[in-house]
Protein backbone atom coordinates (compact mmCIF):
# COMPACT_ATOMS: atom_id res chain seq x y z
CA UNK A 1 0.00 0.00 0.00
CA UNK A 2 1.32 3.41 -0.86
CA UNK A 3 1.93 5.81 1.95
CA UNK A 4 -0.68 8.27 0.65
CA UNK A 5 -3.39 5.61 0.57
CA UNK A 6 -2.36 4.38 3.98
CA UNK A 7 -2.48 7.91 5.41
CA UNK A 8 -5.85 8.66 3.83
CA UNK A 9 -7.37 5.42 5.08
CA UNK A 10 -6.03 5.91 8.58
CA UNK A 11 -7.21 9.51 8.83
CA UNK A 12 -10.72 8.47 7.78
CA UNK A 13 -10.67 5.61 10.26
CA UNK A 14 -9.52 7.89 13.05
CA UNK A 15 -12.16 10.51 12.26
CA UNK A 16 -14.87 7.84 12.27
CA UNK A 17 -13.62 6.40 15.54
CA UNK A 18 -13.53 9.81 17.19
CA UNK A 19 -17.05 10.55 16.02
CA UNK A 20 -18.32 7.25 17.39
CA UNK A 21 -16.44 7.78 20.63
CA UNK A 22 -17.84 11.30 21.01
CA UNK A 23 -21.37 9.95 20.73
CA UNK A 24 -20.78 7.20 23.27
CA UNK A 25 -19.09 9.60 25.68
CA UNK A 26 -21.78 12.20 25.39
CA UNK A 27 -24.51 9.61 25.74
CA UNK A 28 -22.88 8.13 28.83
CA UNK A 29 -22.80 11.53 30.50
CA UNK A 30 -26.41 12.06 29.59
CA UNK A 31 -27.47 8.77 31.12
CA UNK A 32 -25.24 9.02 34.19
CA UNK A 33 -27.10 9.45 37.48
CA UNK A 34 -26.92 12.80 39.26
CA UNK A 35 -27.80 16.23 38.02
CA UNK A 36 -25.11 18.84 37.38
CA UNK A 37 -27.42 21.66 38.31
CA UNK A 38 -28.04 20.35 41.80
CA UNK A 39 -24.35 19.74 42.20
CA UNK A 40 -23.59 23.31 41.22
CA UNK A 41 -25.86 24.48 43.97
CA UNK A 42 -24.03 22.19 46.37
CA UNK A 43 -27.21 20.88 47.90
CA UNK A 44 -28.51 24.30 48.85
CA UNK A 45 -32.12 24.71 48.01
CA UNK A 46 -32.33 27.20 45.18
CA UNK A 47 -35.06 29.33 43.88
CA UNK A 48 -36.67 27.99 40.72
CA UNK A 49 -35.32 31.08 38.99
CA UNK A 50 -31.70 30.25 39.87
CA UNK A 51 -32.18 26.64 38.69
CA UNK A 52 -33.64 27.84 35.45
CA UNK A 53 -30.70 30.18 34.92
CA UNK A 54 -28.22 27.36 35.35
CA UNK A 55 -30.21 25.03 33.13
CA UNK A 56 -30.23 27.70 30.51
CA UNK A 57 -26.52 28.45 30.75
CA UNK A 58 -25.67 24.78 30.20
CA UNK A 59 -28.63 24.14 27.89
CA UNK A 60 -29.78 21.35 30.16
CA UNK A 61 -33.37 21.64 28.98
CA UNK A 62 -32.65 21.06 25.29
CA UNK A 63 -33.30 17.65 23.68
CA UNK A 64 -30.39 15.19 23.61
CA UNK A 65 -29.50 15.47 19.94
CA UNK A 66 -29.59 19.23 19.97
CA UNK A 67 -27.16 19.22 22.88
CA UNK A 68 -24.98 16.59 21.26
CA UNK A 69 -24.64 18.41 17.96
CA UNK A 70 -24.06 21.74 19.66
CA UNK A 71 -21.25 20.16 21.67
CA UNK A 72 -19.83 18.52 18.56
CA UNK A 73 -19.90 21.81 16.68
CA UNK A 74 -18.01 23.49 19.50
CA UNK A 75 -15.45 20.68 19.57
CA UNK A 76 -14.75 21.17 15.88
CA UNK A 77 -13.89 24.77 16.69
CA UNK A 78 -11.53 23.65 19.45
CA UNK A 79 -13.97 24.68 22.15
CA UNK A 80 -14.33 22.04 24.86
CA UNK A 81 -16.79 24.11 26.86
CA UNK A 82 -16.50 25.52 30.35
CA UNK A 83 -15.76 23.47 33.42
CA UNK A 84 -18.62 23.52 35.91
CA UNK A 85 -16.30 22.86 38.82
CA UNK A 86 -13.41 25.18 37.96
CA UNK A 87 -15.40 27.81 36.08
CA UNK A 88 -12.72 28.16 33.38
CA UNK A 89 -12.38 26.87 29.83
CA UNK A 90 -11.77 23.13 29.75
CA UNK A 91 -9.10 23.63 27.08
CA UNK A 92 -7.14 25.82 29.48
CA UNK A 93 -7.49 23.22 32.26
CA UNK A 94 -6.18 20.53 29.91
CA UNK A 95 -3.30 22.67 28.65
CA UNK A 96 -2.23 23.35 32.25
CA UNK A 97 -2.32 19.71 33.26
CA UNK A 98 -1.22 17.87 30.16
CA UNK A 99 2.55 18.50 30.53
CA UNK A 100 2.89 16.76 33.90
CA UNK A 101 0.90 13.75 32.69
CA UNK A 102 2.89 13.50 29.47
CA UNK A 103 6.15 13.77 31.40
CA UNK A 104 4.95 11.10 33.83
CA UNK A 105 3.99 8.75 31.00
CA UNK A 106 7.26 9.44 29.17
CA UNK A 107 9.36 8.76 32.27
CA UNK A 108 7.44 5.57 33.00
CA UNK A 109 7.78 4.47 29.38
CA UNK A 110 11.55 4.96 29.42
CA UNK A 111 11.72 2.88 32.60
CA UNK A 112 9.51 0.15 31.14
CA UNK A 113 11.43 -0.12 27.90
CA UNK A 114 14.88 0.03 29.49
CA UNK A 115 14.21 -2.32 32.40
CA UNK A 116 11.71 -4.58 30.63
CA UNK A 117 13.92 -5.20 27.62
CA UNK A 118 17.06 -5.61 29.72
CA UNK A 119 15.48 -8.07 32.15
CA UNK A 120 13.83 -10.11 29.39
CA UNK A 121 17.07 -10.16 27.40
CA UNK A 122 19.26 -11.19 30.32
CA UNK A 123 16.80 -13.86 31.42
CA UNK A 124 16.59 -15.40 27.97
CA UNK A 125 20.31 -15.28 27.21
CA UNK A 126 21.74 -16.21 30.62
CA UNK A 127 19.19 -18.80 31.73
CA UNK A 128 19.77 -20.73 34.96
CA UNK A 129 19.60 -19.03 38.34
CA UNK A 130 19.69 -15.53 36.84
CA UNK A 131 16.67 -16.36 34.73
CA UNK A 132 14.77 -17.89 37.67
CA UNK A 133 15.45 -14.81 39.79
CA UNK A 134 14.17 -12.54 37.04
CA UNK A 135 11.10 -14.72 36.57
CA UNK A 136 10.23 -14.55 40.27
CA UNK A 137 10.85 -10.79 40.41
CA UNK A 138 8.73 -10.09 37.36
CA UNK A 139 5.95 -12.30 38.67
CA UNK A 140 5.87 -10.19 41.84
CA UNK A 141 5.96 -7.00 39.74
CA UNK A 142 3.09 -8.18 37.55
CA UNK A 143 1.09 -9.09 40.64
CA UNK A 144 1.48 -5.72 42.36
CA UNK A 145 -1.27 -3.18 41.58
CA UNK A 146 0.15 0.29 40.87
CA UNK A 147 -1.62 1.92 43.82
CA UNK A 148 -0.05 -0.62 46.17
CA UNK A 149 3.33 0.09 44.59
CA UNK A 150 2.62 3.80 45.01
CA UNK A 151 1.91 3.43 48.73
CA UNK A 152 4.99 1.27 49.29
CA UNK A 153 7.32 3.59 47.36
CA UNK A 154 5.88 6.63 49.09
CA UNK A 155 6.27 5.08 52.51
CA UNK A 156 9.85 3.98 51.96
CA UNK A 157 11.56 6.55 49.73
CA UNK A 158 9.51 9.65 50.53
CA UNK A 159 8.41 9.33 54.15
CA UNK A 160 11.07 7.07 55.69
CA UNK A 161 14.17 8.07 53.70
CA UNK A 162 13.08 11.48 52.51
CA UNK A 163 14.81 11.15 49.13
CA UNK A 164 11.77 12.22 47.14
CA UNK A 165 8.75 14.44 47.84
CA UNK A 166 5.65 12.62 49.03
CA UNK A 167 3.35 14.43 46.66
CA UNK A 168 2.91 17.35 44.30
CA UNK A 169 3.96 18.17 40.76
CA UNK A 170 6.85 20.62 41.12
CA UNK A 171 7.86 23.70 39.18
CA UNK A 172 10.24 23.65 36.22
CA UNK A 173 11.59 20.58 34.42
CA UNK A 174 14.20 19.36 36.93
CA UNK A 175 11.86 19.75 39.87
CA UNK A 176 9.07 18.02 37.98
CA UNK A 177 11.32 15.05 37.15
CA UNK A 178 12.24 14.83 40.84
CA UNK A 179 8.57 14.94 41.87
CA UNK A 180 7.53 12.43 39.23
CA UNK A 181 10.26 9.83 39.81
CA UNK A 182 8.40 7.75 42.42
CA UNK A 183 5.08 8.00 40.56
CA UNK A 184 6.80 6.91 37.34
CA UNK A 185 8.31 3.89 39.09
CA UNK A 186 4.94 2.99 40.61
CA UNK A 187 3.36 3.29 37.20
CA UNK A 188 6.10 1.31 35.44
CA UNK A 189 6.51 -1.64 37.78
CA UNK A 190 3.70 -3.83 36.48
CA UNK A 191 4.54 -3.09 32.86
CA UNK A 192 8.27 -3.75 33.37
CA UNK A 193 7.29 -7.21 34.53
CA UNK A 194 4.99 -7.69 31.59
CA UNK A 195 7.45 -6.46 28.96
CA UNK A 196 10.26 -8.52 30.50
CA UNK A 197 8.16 -11.65 30.19
CA UNK A 198 7.09 -10.91 26.64
CA UNK A 199 10.67 -10.11 25.60
CA UNK A 200 12.02 -13.22 27.30
CA UNK A 201 9.47 -15.50 25.65
CA UNK A 202 10.00 -13.94 22.22
CA UNK A 203 13.78 -14.21 22.50
CA UNK A 204 13.66 -17.80 23.73
CA UNK A 205 11.50 -18.69 20.77
CA UNK A 206 14.06 -17.17 18.41
CA UNK A 207 17.00 -18.72 20.29
CA UNK A 208 15.57 -22.16 19.60
CA UNK A 209 15.15 -21.31 15.92
CA UNK A 210 17.10 -23.01 13.17
CA UNK A 211 18.37 -19.73 11.73
CA UNK A 212 20.15 -19.05 15.02
CA UNK A 213 21.91 -22.41 14.89
CA UNK A 214 22.86 -21.66 11.30
CA UNK A 215 24.31 -18.27 12.20
CA UNK A 216 26.35 -19.92 14.94
CA UNK A 217 27.52 -22.67 12.61
CA UNK A 218 28.90 -19.98 10.32
CA UNK A 219 31.00 -18.46 13.06
CA UNK A 220 28.90 -15.36 13.63
CA UNK A 221 30.05 -14.13 17.08
CA UNK A 222 27.52 -14.89 19.82
CA UNK A 223 26.97 -11.21 20.61
CA UNK A 224 26.02 -10.59 16.99
CA UNK A 225 23.85 -13.70 16.91
CA UNK A 226 21.84 -12.31 19.80
CA UNK A 227 21.71 -8.83 18.35
CA UNK A 228 21.09 -9.58 14.66
CA UNK A 229 19.03 -12.75 14.85
CA UNK A 230 17.44 -13.06 18.27
CA UNK A 231 16.63 -9.57 19.51
CA UNK A 232 16.07 -8.27 16.00
CA UNK A 233 13.45 -10.94 15.29
CA UNK A 234 11.82 -10.51 18.69
CA UNK A 235 11.30 -6.78 18.14
CA UNK A 236 7.99 -7.19 16.31
CA UNK A 237 6.40 -8.80 19.35
CA UNK A 238 7.99 -6.18 21.59
CA UNK A 239 6.66 -3.32 19.45
CA UNK A 240 3.14 -4.73 19.41
CA UNK A 241 3.27 -5.05 23.21
CA UNK A 242 4.66 -1.50 23.29
CA UNK A 243 1.39 -0.10 21.95
CA UNK A 244 -0.51 -1.90 24.66
CA UNK A 245 1.95 -0.65 27.26
CA UNK A 246 1.56 3.03 26.39
CA UNK A 247 -2.23 2.69 26.45
CA UNK A 248 -2.07 1.03 29.87
CA UNK A 249 0.27 3.76 31.12
CA UNK A 250 -2.21 6.44 30.11
CA UNK A 251 -5.09 4.72 31.91
CA UNK A 252 -3.10 4.01 35.06
CA UNK A 253 -2.07 7.65 35.48
CA UNK A 254 -5.52 8.17 37.07
CA UNK A 255 -4.60 5.93 40.01
CA UNK A 256 -1.03 7.09 40.40
CA UNK A 257 -1.70 10.82 40.03
CA UNK A 258 -4.34 10.59 42.72
CA UNK A 259 -2.03 8.66 45.05
CA UNK A 260 0.75 11.24 44.65
CA UNK A 261 -1.51 14.31 44.29
CA UNK A 262 -0.04 15.18 40.91
CA UNK A 263 -1.88 17.94 39.10
CA UNK A 264 -2.25 16.02 35.86
CA UNK A 265 -4.98 14.84 33.53
CA UNK A 266 -5.58 11.64 35.47
CA UNK A 267 -6.22 13.45 38.72
CA UNK A 268 -8.41 15.97 36.90
CA UNK A 269 -10.46 13.14 35.44
CA UNK A 270 -11.01 11.63 38.87
CA UNK A 271 -12.05 14.96 40.40
CA UNK A 272 -14.26 15.85 37.46
CA UNK A 273 -15.99 12.49 37.64
CA UNK A 274 -16.80 12.77 41.35
CA UNK A 275 -18.07 16.34 40.91
CA UNK A 276 -20.14 15.59 37.79
CA UNK A 277 -18.12 18.16 35.86
CA UNK A 278 -19.35 16.68 32.61
CA UNK A 279 -17.70 19.04 30.08
CA UNK A 280 -14.32 18.19 31.62
CA UNK A 281 -15.01 14.44 31.77
CA UNK A 282 -16.13 14.44 28.15
CA UNK A 283 -13.07 16.35 26.98
CA UNK A 284 -10.64 14.07 28.84
CA UNK A 285 -12.35 10.92 27.64
CA UNK A 286 -12.11 12.11 24.07
CA UNK A 287 -8.48 13.11 24.60
CA UNK A 288 -7.68 9.61 25.86
CA UNK A 289 -9.36 8.02 22.84
CA UNK A 290 -7.29 10.34 20.64
CA UNK A 291 -4.10 9.34 22.44
CA UNK A 292 -4.87 5.63 22.03
CA UNK A 293 -5.40 6.10 18.31
CA UNK A 294 -2.16 8.04 17.99
CA UNK A 295 -0.23 5.31 19.77
CA UNK A 296 -1.73 2.72 17.48
CA UNK A 297 -0.85 4.78 14.44
CA UNK A 298 2.76 5.15 15.57
CA UNK A 299 3.04 1.39 16.12
CA UNK A 300 1.62 0.74 12.65
CA UNK A 301 4.05 3.21 11.11
CA UNK A 302 7.01 1.64 12.90
CA UNK A 303 6.05 -1.94 12.16
CA UNK A 304 7.37 -2.15 8.59
CA UNK A 305 10.72 -0.88 9.88
CA UNK A 306 10.91 -3.73 12.37
CA UNK A 307 9.59 -6.36 9.98
CA UNK A 308 10.45 -5.49 6.36
CA UNK A 309 8.38 -8.40 5.11
CA UNK A 310 5.23 -6.66 6.35
CA UNK A 311 3.86 -3.87 4.22
CA UNK A 312 2.43 -0.69 5.65
CA UNK A 313 -1.01 -1.15 7.13
CA UNK A 314 -1.03 -4.94 6.77
CA UNK A 315 -0.55 -5.51 10.49
CA UNK A 316 -3.77 -5.97 12.40
CA UNK A 317 -4.02 -3.45 15.20
CA UNK A 318 -3.96 -4.98 18.62
CA UNK A 319 -3.37 -2.15 21.04
Amino acid at each position, binding site marked *: MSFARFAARRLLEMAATLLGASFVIFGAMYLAPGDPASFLLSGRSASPAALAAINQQYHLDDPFFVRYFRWLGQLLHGDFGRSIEYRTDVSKLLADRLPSTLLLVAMALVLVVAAGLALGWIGAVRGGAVDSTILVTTTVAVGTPSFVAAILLQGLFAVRLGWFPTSGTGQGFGDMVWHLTLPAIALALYLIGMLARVTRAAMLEQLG*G*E*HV*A*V*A*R*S*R*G*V*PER*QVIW*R*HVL*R*NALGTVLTTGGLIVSTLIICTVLVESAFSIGGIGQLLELATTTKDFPTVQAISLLIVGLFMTVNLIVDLLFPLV*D*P*TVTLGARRSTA
Partner: protein
Amino acid sequence: MTRTLDIKSLRLRLPDTARPVLDGVDLHIAAGETVALVGESGSGKTLTSRTVLRLLPKGAETEGEVDVAGENVLAMTPQQLHALRTGRVAMIFQDPRAAINPLRRVGDFLTEGVRLTGTLSEQDATRRAGELLEAVGLSGAVLRHYPGQMSGGMLQRVMIAAALMGDPVLLLADEPTTALDVTSQAEVVALIGELKERFGTGLLFVTHDLGLAAAISDRVYVMYAGRIVETGPAEALFADPRHPYTRALLDASPRLIEPGRRLAAIDGQPPDLRQELTGCPFAPRCRFATGLCTTQAPQPQAAPGAPGHLAACHHSDRLAEGAADA
Protein backbone atom coordinates in the same frame (compact mmCIF):
# COMPACT_ATOMS: atom_id res chain seq x y z
CA MET B 1 47.91 -37.62 4.12
CA THR B 2 45.65 -36.43 6.92
CA ARG B 3 41.98 -37.06 6.45
CA THR B 4 39.65 -34.10 6.03
CA LEU B 5 37.34 -35.61 8.62
CA ASP B 6 38.12 -38.42 11.01
CA ILE B 7 35.52 -39.32 13.63
CA LYS B 8 36.89 -41.86 16.09
CA SER B 9 34.72 -43.75 18.59
CA LEU B 10 32.39 -40.81 19.02
CA ARG B 11 29.96 -41.25 21.86
CA LEU B 12 27.33 -38.61 22.56
CA ARG B 13 25.08 -38.60 25.58
CA LEU B 14 22.01 -36.39 25.98
CA PRO B 15 20.41 -35.51 29.33
CA ASP B 16 17.64 -37.83 30.57
CA THR B 17 18.49 -40.73 28.30
CA ALA B 18 19.41 -44.29 29.22
CA ARG B 19 21.99 -44.86 26.50
CA PRO B 20 24.29 -42.73 24.34
CA VAL B 21 22.44 -41.36 21.33
CA LEU B 22 25.64 -41.80 19.30
CA ASP B 23 27.46 -44.95 20.36
CA GLY B 24 30.98 -45.45 19.06
CA VAL B 25 30.68 -43.81 15.65
CA ASP B 26 33.71 -44.20 13.37
CA LEU B 27 33.61 -42.28 10.11
CA HIS B 28 36.23 -40.71 7.92
CA ILE B 29 36.39 -38.62 4.77
CA ALA B 30 39.52 -38.22 2.65
CA ALA B 31 40.29 -34.91 0.96
CA GLY B 32 37.77 -34.25 -1.80
CA GLU B 33 35.86 -37.46 -1.10
CA THR B 34 32.06 -37.74 -1.05
CA VAL B 35 30.63 -39.83 1.74
CA ALA B 36 26.98 -40.51 2.41
CA LEU B 37 25.47 -41.13 5.84
CA VAL B 38 22.22 -43.08 5.64
CA GLY B 39 19.69 -44.23 8.19
CA GLU B 40 16.10 -43.88 9.19
CA SER B 41 14.66 -41.00 11.14
CA GLY B 42 16.10 -40.62 14.63
CA SER B 43 19.18 -42.76 13.99
CA GLY B 44 21.53 -39.86 14.80
CA LYS B 45 22.59 -38.58 11.38
CA THR B 46 21.93 -34.93 12.16
CA LEU B 47 23.66 -35.15 15.53
CA THR B 48 26.71 -36.75 13.89
CA SER B 49 27.02 -34.01 11.28
CA ARG B 50 26.38 -31.24 13.80
CA THR B 51 29.03 -32.62 16.09
CA VAL B 52 31.58 -31.87 13.38
CA LEU B 53 30.86 -28.17 14.00
CA ARG B 54 30.33 -28.80 17.72
CA LEU B 55 26.74 -27.60 17.42
CA LEU B 56 25.46 -29.74 20.25
CA PRO B 57 22.17 -29.73 22.15
CA LYS B 58 22.30 -28.26 25.67
CA GLY B 59 23.75 -30.67 28.18
CA ALA B 60 25.26 -33.04 25.61
CA GLU B 61 28.38 -34.94 26.72
CA THR B 62 30.89 -36.29 24.24
CA GLU B 63 33.63 -38.91 24.23
CA GLY B 64 36.01 -39.82 21.46
CA GLU B 65 37.47 -37.62 18.78
CA VAL B 66 36.23 -35.59 15.85
CA ASP B 67 39.28 -34.52 13.86
CA VAL B 68 39.03 -32.00 11.07
CA ALA B 69 42.32 -31.82 9.15
CA GLY B 70 44.00 -33.43 12.13
CA GLU B 71 42.60 -31.17 14.84
CA ASN B 72 40.11 -32.44 17.39
CA VAL B 73 36.98 -30.28 17.22
CA LEU B 74 35.81 -31.51 20.61
CA ALA B 75 38.96 -30.13 22.28
CA MET B 76 39.13 -26.80 20.45
CA THR B 77 39.30 -23.46 22.25
CA PRO B 78 36.53 -21.00 21.40
CA GLN B 79 38.92 -19.18 19.03
CA GLN B 80 39.86 -22.35 17.18
CA LEU B 81 36.22 -23.38 16.97
CA HIS B 82 35.39 -19.99 15.58
CA ALA B 83 38.06 -20.31 12.90
CA LEU B 84 36.74 -23.76 12.04
CA ARG B 85 33.18 -22.50 11.60
CA THR B 86 34.05 -19.44 9.55
CA GLY B 87 36.40 -21.28 7.23
CA ARG B 88 37.14 -24.93 7.02
CA VAL B 89 33.75 -26.55 7.56
CA ALA B 90 30.38 -25.36 6.29
CA MET B 91 26.95 -26.84 6.61
CA ILE B 92 23.98 -26.95 4.26
CA PHE B 93 20.79 -27.34 6.25
CA GLN B 94 17.68 -29.34 5.54
CA ASP B 95 15.07 -26.58 5.44
CA PRO B 96 16.45 -23.37 3.92
CA ARG B 97 13.32 -21.47 4.86
CA ALA B 98 13.92 -22.11 8.54
CA ALA B 99 17.68 -21.75 8.23
CA ILE B 100 17.75 -18.24 6.79
CA ASN B 101 16.55 -15.32 8.92
CA PRO B 102 13.40 -14.06 7.15
CA LEU B 103 13.96 -10.49 8.33
CA ARG B 104 17.36 -10.00 6.73
CA ARG B 105 18.27 -9.69 3.09
CA VAL B 106 19.85 -12.58 1.22
CA GLY B 107 22.99 -10.49 0.72
CA ASP B 108 23.31 -10.01 4.44
CA PHE B 109 22.92 -13.75 5.01
CA LEU B 110 25.57 -14.62 2.44
CA THR B 111 28.16 -12.19 3.70
CA GLU B 112 27.58 -12.00 7.44
CA GLY B 113 29.88 -14.88 8.39
CA VAL B 114 32.96 -13.59 6.60
CA ARG B 115 32.13 -9.94 7.17
CA LEU B 116 31.47 -10.02 10.90
CA THR B 117 34.56 -12.05 11.55
CA GLY B 118 36.73 -9.73 9.50
CA THR B 119 37.76 -12.49 7.07
CA LEU B 120 36.76 -10.32 4.13
CA SER B 121 35.99 -6.63 3.74
CA GLU B 122 32.41 -5.68 3.00
CA GLN B 123 33.14 -5.09 -0.71
CA ASP B 124 35.12 -8.29 -1.14
CA ALA B 125 32.41 -10.22 0.65
CA THR B 126 29.72 -8.79 -1.61
CA ARG B 127 31.79 -9.48 -4.74
CA ARG B 128 32.38 -13.07 -3.67
CA ALA B 129 28.69 -13.49 -2.83
CA GLY B 130 27.82 -12.29 -6.34
CA GLU B 131 30.25 -14.77 -7.92
CA LEU B 132 28.95 -17.68 -5.88
CA LEU B 133 25.34 -16.79 -6.64
CA GLU B 134 26.27 -17.03 -10.28
CA ALA B 135 27.93 -20.37 -9.61
CA VAL B 136 24.70 -21.72 -8.13
CA GLY B 137 22.69 -20.33 -11.03
CA LEU B 138 21.14 -17.24 -9.46
CA SER B 139 21.49 -13.62 -10.47
CA GLY B 140 23.23 -11.04 -8.31
CA ALA B 141 19.90 -9.24 -7.97
CA VAL B 142 18.77 -11.70 -5.29
CA LEU B 143 21.30 -10.11 -2.92
CA ARG B 144 18.68 -7.48 -2.18
CA HIS B 145 15.76 -9.94 -1.87
CA TYR B 146 14.18 -11.10 1.35
CA PRO B 147 13.91 -14.89 1.77
CA GLY B 148 10.11 -14.65 1.66
CA GLN B 149 10.33 -13.51 -1.95
CA MET B 150 12.11 -16.67 -3.11
CA SER B 151 11.18 -20.31 -3.69
CA GLY B 152 12.56 -23.14 -1.57
CA GLY B 153 14.80 -24.33 -4.41
CA MET B 154 16.26 -20.86 -4.87
CA LEU B 155 16.81 -20.52 -1.14
CA GLN B 156 18.64 -23.83 -1.00
CA ARG B 157 20.92 -22.53 -3.76
CA VAL B 158 21.53 -19.46 -1.60
CA MET B 159 22.31 -21.80 1.28
CA ILE B 160 24.85 -23.66 -0.89
CA ALA B 161 26.45 -20.40 -2.02
CA ALA B 162 26.62 -19.33 1.63
CA ALA B 163 28.35 -22.56 2.56
CA LEU B 164 31.04 -21.90 -0.04
CA MET B 165 31.72 -18.32 1.13
CA GLY B 166 34.50 -19.30 3.53
CA ASP B 167 36.36 -21.66 1.11
CA PRO B 168 35.65 -24.80 3.13
CA VAL B 169 37.56 -28.07 2.91
CA LEU B 170 34.49 -29.94 4.09
CA LEU B 171 30.80 -29.51 3.30
CA LEU B 172 28.19 -31.06 5.55
CA ALA B 173 24.86 -31.43 3.77
CA ASP B 174 22.09 -32.57 6.10
CA GLU B 175 19.24 -33.85 3.94
CA PRO B 176 19.60 -30.80 1.68
CA THR B 177 16.76 -31.86 -0.59
CA THR B 178 14.11 -33.17 1.79
CA ALA B 179 12.25 -29.86 1.98
CA LEU B 180 12.26 -29.33 -1.79
CA ASP B 181 9.99 -30.42 -4.63
CA VAL B 182 11.21 -33.20 -6.92
CA THR B 183 12.58 -30.99 -9.71
CA SER B 184 14.50 -28.77 -7.33
CA GLN B 185 15.76 -31.88 -5.55
CA ALA B 186 17.47 -33.22 -8.65
CA GLU B 187 18.89 -29.79 -9.49
CA VAL B 188 20.25 -29.22 -6.00
CA VAL B 189 21.86 -32.66 -5.85
CA ALA B 190 23.50 -32.10 -9.23
CA LEU B 191 24.65 -28.66 -8.17
CA ILE B 192 26.21 -29.87 -4.93
CA GLY B 193 28.07 -32.60 -6.82
CA GLU B 194 29.33 -30.17 -9.43
CA LEU B 195 30.44 -27.48 -7.00
CA LYS B 196 32.13 -30.00 -4.80
CA GLU B 197 34.29 -31.09 -7.75
CA ARG B 198 34.98 -27.52 -8.78
CA PHE B 199 35.98 -26.30 -5.33
CA GLY B 200 37.63 -29.57 -4.32
CA THR B 201 35.84 -29.93 -0.98
CA GLY B 202 35.06 -33.09 0.88
CA LEU B 203 31.34 -33.79 1.31
CA LEU B 204 29.34 -35.54 3.98
CA PHE B 205 25.92 -36.09 2.47
CA VAL B 206 23.27 -37.04 5.01
CA THR B 207 20.14 -38.67 3.64
CA HIS B 208 17.64 -41.39 4.38
CA ASP B 209 17.48 -42.25 0.68
CA LEU B 210 19.86 -45.11 -0.04
CA GLY B 211 19.45 -44.74 -3.81
CA LEU B 212 20.43 -41.12 -3.72
CA ALA B 213 23.35 -41.94 -1.45
CA ALA B 214 24.65 -44.55 -3.86
CA ALA B 215 24.24 -42.20 -6.81
CA ILE B 216 26.32 -39.36 -5.47
CA SER B 217 28.84 -40.84 -3.07
CA ASP B 218 32.09 -42.76 -3.16
CA ARG B 219 31.43 -44.50 0.12
CA VAL B 220 28.36 -44.99 2.28
CA TYR B 221 27.88 -45.31 6.04
CA VAL B 222 24.67 -46.87 7.28
CA MET B 223 23.59 -45.79 10.73
CA TYR B 224 21.16 -47.49 13.06
CA ALA B 225 20.30 -46.39 16.62
CA GLY B 226 23.42 -44.24 16.89
CA ARG B 227 25.84 -46.87 15.57
CA ILE B 228 27.45 -47.39 12.20
CA VAL B 229 26.18 -50.84 11.24
CA GLU B 230 27.75 -51.05 7.79
CA THR B 231 30.14 -49.09 5.64
CA GLY B 232 31.77 -49.62 2.29
CA PRO B 233 32.07 -48.45 -1.29
CA ALA B 234 28.68 -47.49 -2.67
CA GLU B 235 28.53 -50.28 -5.31
CA ALA B 236 29.65 -53.01 -2.94
CA LEU B 237 27.11 -51.99 -0.35
CA PHE B 238 24.40 -52.05 -2.94
CA ALA B 239 25.36 -55.28 -4.64
CA ASP B 240 26.33 -57.19 -1.54
CA PRO B 241 24.86 -55.75 1.67
CA ARG B 242 26.37 -57.46 4.70
CA HIS B 243 24.06 -56.09 7.41
CA PRO B 244 20.39 -57.09 7.59
CA TYR B 245 19.43 -53.47 8.21
CA THR B 246 21.12 -52.31 4.99
CA ARG B 247 19.42 -55.17 3.21
CA ALA B 248 16.06 -54.16 4.64
CA LEU B 249 16.64 -50.52 3.65
CA LEU B 250 17.41 -51.63 0.10
CA ASP B 251 14.25 -53.74 -0.02
CA ALA B 252 12.26 -50.80 1.29
CA SER B 253 13.51 -48.26 -1.24
CA PRO B 254 11.84 -47.89 -4.63
CA ARG B 255 14.04 -48.61 -7.65
CA LEU B 256 13.28 -47.73 -11.21
CA ILE B 257 15.08 -50.82 -12.51
CA GLU B 258 12.51 -53.18 -11.01
CA PRO B 259 9.26 -51.24 -11.11
CA GLY B 260 6.95 -54.19 -10.54
CA ARG B 261 8.59 -55.36 -7.31
CA ARG B 262 6.70 -54.97 -4.03
CA LEU B 263 8.37 -52.76 -1.45
CA ALA B 264 9.06 -54.37 1.90
CA ALA B 265 8.56 -52.09 4.86
CA ILE B 266 10.79 -52.75 7.86
CA ASP B 267 8.64 -54.09 10.70
CA GLY B 268 8.91 -52.65 14.19
CA GLN B 269 10.33 -49.44 15.57
CA PRO B 270 13.89 -48.27 16.22
CA PRO B 271 14.75 -48.55 19.93
CA ASP B 272 13.78 -45.70 22.21
CA LEU B 273 16.53 -43.56 23.76
CA ARG B 274 15.17 -44.16 27.26
CA GLN B 275 15.84 -47.85 26.87
CA GLU B 276 19.21 -49.55 27.54
CA LEU B 277 20.56 -51.72 24.76
CA THR B 278 22.40 -54.97 25.07
CA GLY B 279 23.62 -56.81 22.07
CA CYS B 280 22.74 -55.74 18.55
CA PRO B 281 20.30 -52.80 18.40
CA PHE B 282 18.64 -54.22 15.29
CA ALA B 283 18.04 -57.70 16.74
CA PRO B 284 14.36 -57.23 17.65
CA ARG B 285 13.54 -56.41 14.02
CA CYS B 286 15.96 -58.83 12.39
CA ARG B 287 14.93 -62.12 10.79
CA PHE B 288 18.46 -63.49 11.17
CA ALA B 289 18.68 -62.76 14.91
CA THR B 290 19.81 -65.51 17.27
CA GLY B 291 20.43 -65.67 21.01
CA LEU B 292 23.93 -64.36 20.43
CA CYS B 293 22.55 -61.14 18.92
CA THR B 294 20.60 -60.20 22.03
CA THR B 295 23.50 -60.70 24.42
CA GLN B 296 26.62 -59.61 22.56
CA ALA B 297 27.09 -56.44 20.55
CA PRO B 298 28.63 -57.28 17.16
CA GLN B 299 31.86 -55.53 16.19
CA PRO B 300 32.54 -54.27 12.65
CA GLN B 301 34.15 -56.97 10.53
CA ALA B 302 35.55 -56.71 7.03
CA ALA B 303 33.99 -58.69 4.22
CA PRO B 304 36.26 -61.37 2.77
CA GLY B 305 38.71 -59.76 0.39
CA ALA B 306 37.21 -56.28 0.86
CA PRO B 307 38.95 -54.50 3.76
CA GLY B 308 36.94 -51.30 3.23
CA HIS B 309 33.57 -53.06 3.47
CA LEU B 310 32.67 -53.51 7.14
CA ALA B 311 29.51 -54.70 8.81
CA ALA B 312 28.65 -55.04 12.48
CA CYS B 313 26.68 -58.24 12.30
CA HIS B 314 27.16 -61.74 13.74
CA HIS B 315 25.50 -63.24 10.69
CA SER B 316 26.96 -61.35 7.72
CA ASP B 317 27.89 -64.61 6.01
CA ARG B 318 24.44 -66.15 6.40
CA LEU B 319 23.04 -62.95 4.92
CA ALA B 320 25.23 -63.36 1.82
CA GLU B 321 24.06 -67.00 1.42
CA GLY B 322 20.45 -65.96 1.93
CA ALA B 323 20.78 -63.38 -0.81
CA ALA B 324 22.26 -65.99 -3.11
CA ASP B 325 19.31 -68.32 -2.43
CA ALA B 326 16.69 -65.69 -3.10
